[in-house]
């Protein structure tokens, strides 16, 4: 395991303190709640999906800095993107933080989300980083709940 301080970079700390897209879209088309029973992290995602695009997305909930920053950066990254691309990002993100990407494979969709790549060295925190993405996946699939149990 590496020094956890490498993960707690300014961007993550700043998004934790001032999360973007925080709140709830009352007129949403998609919605899901995510729970991490081990930590007690919880997250509610609301989305407006139109013409195959994620037009708007908000989250609310409480959790650790990894979870909050992951949700904040995720909402910024998928907003305006086609649903298929958002799903592909979720796939790449999960692969990156779980450390089960094929060696040499790229994560071209993730951009600054690669900030979270250090999570793979903190196995106990992987579920925190993944929770927003698992919840997004559930919402887009039309499932009401996601759990990283």
């Amino acid at each position, binding site marked *: 395991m590496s020094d*956890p*301080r490498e993960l*707690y970079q300014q961007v993550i700390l700043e998004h934790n303190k001032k999360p973007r897209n925080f709140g709830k879209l009352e007129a949403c088309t998609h919605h899901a709640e995510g729970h991490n029973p*081990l*930590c*007690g992290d919880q997250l509610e995602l609301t989305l407006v999906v139109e013409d195959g695009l994620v037009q708007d997305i908000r989250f609310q909930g409480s*959790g*650790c*800095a*990894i979870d909050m920053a992951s949700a904040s950066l995720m909402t910024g990254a998928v907003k305006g993107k086609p649903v298929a691309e958002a799903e592909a990002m979720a796939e790449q993100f999960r692969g990156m933080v779980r450390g089960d990407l094929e060696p040499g494979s790229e994560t071209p969709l993730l951009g600054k989300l690669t900030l979270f790549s250090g999570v793979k060295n903190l196995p106990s925190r992987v579920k925190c980083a993944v929770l927003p993405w698992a919840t997004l996946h559930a919402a887009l699939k039309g499932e009401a709940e996601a759990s990283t149990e």
Partner: protein
Amino acid sequence: MSTAVQPLDVTAIRKDFPLVSRVLNGKPVIYLDSAVSGQMPLPVIERMSKYERDEHTNVHRGVSTLSQQATDYFEAAREKVRRFIGAASIREIVWTRGTTEAINLVAQTFGRMMVKEGDEILLSGMEHHANIVPWQMLAEEKGATIKVIPMTDDGELILESLDELITDRTKLLGVVHVSNVLGTVNPVKEIIARAHARGVPVLVDGAQAVPHLQVDVKDLDADFYVFSGHKLSGPTGIGVLYGKLAHLEAMPPWQGGGSMIRSVTWEKTTYVAAPGKFEAGTPPIAAAIGLGKAIDYLTALGLDRIAAHEHDLLVYATERLTRIPGLRILGTAKQKASVISFVVEGIHPHDMGSLLDGEGVVVRAGHHCAQPVMARFNVPATTRASFAYFNTREEVDVLVSAVEKAIELFK
């Protein structure tokens, strides 16, 4: 604490714990997590290893010299437990896998026998899940209800509520001796006396108490007292159910199988007396012998000296942590064991746990298997440091500076 107590030679004691001299991720390991699981001293590890290497067989089986010796060691450990907690007879000491299994055993035998539809089970508001869920399962099966003894913001049980909470339908009271989250030492002797005055038997969860204070089940007049080996400098996989002999004799067996029978025919099976009737199958023999050795080790150090040392660390750590702005300690009871749970404004306990881990400081971050306690204090989780007899003030200093570093990072 009495000043007459000779201080522990912690430098010498630490030589018995190789883990506390380890370096992990480039940092010396500071083990402040004995409430999660205590470390075993070398004499315990070596005793178990000797049993497995030179003495291993089964107990209560056959006529071989080896089997007789194994049985003697195994039963000698039971006698050590009896003496350690002041029970009247070794027949009152039942081996279990741990505290959780001991409580489940009582719930599914004594509980099933006593609790009927409409009855009530009274639990304290600071129980570990181990002393909640088995009773909820029983209550659901029987159509009974669970009632809860409330606590103050300091984490002390409100005993005035007992008069009202104990009713004619109360069939059992379950209370933790020392809270694993708050460190509160509950006045169990008084609680038991008040419950008995109303005819209610009491189960005490002593998992966090036995490592820190001298327990005398006869003096407490506990009906059941349960604890685990691994919090008492012993191994995992072994625990103890103490029960008053009259209760154990009245209770039906729990699991069926070998060892717990007197005779088996296709028509009818009869059972041996307590404690044997609760010990089906091959027990964890090395673990029981190891626990016996752990009790020898602690007794030789002196429980009063251990308590004095841990109390000094508790007072010192409380003083230092309290001075950190934004840090709040949960559990400020007058009587506390060496457990400190805290939260820091703006930093989730899991982030704190990871950052402390990065400094080599091993603590528990989470809900501590006590979610109702988290709800009572309106926090999702806490960070918890727990101190044992091998810890030092210097290690407390490392904890404090690691907390300060984390706060600095999150500023």
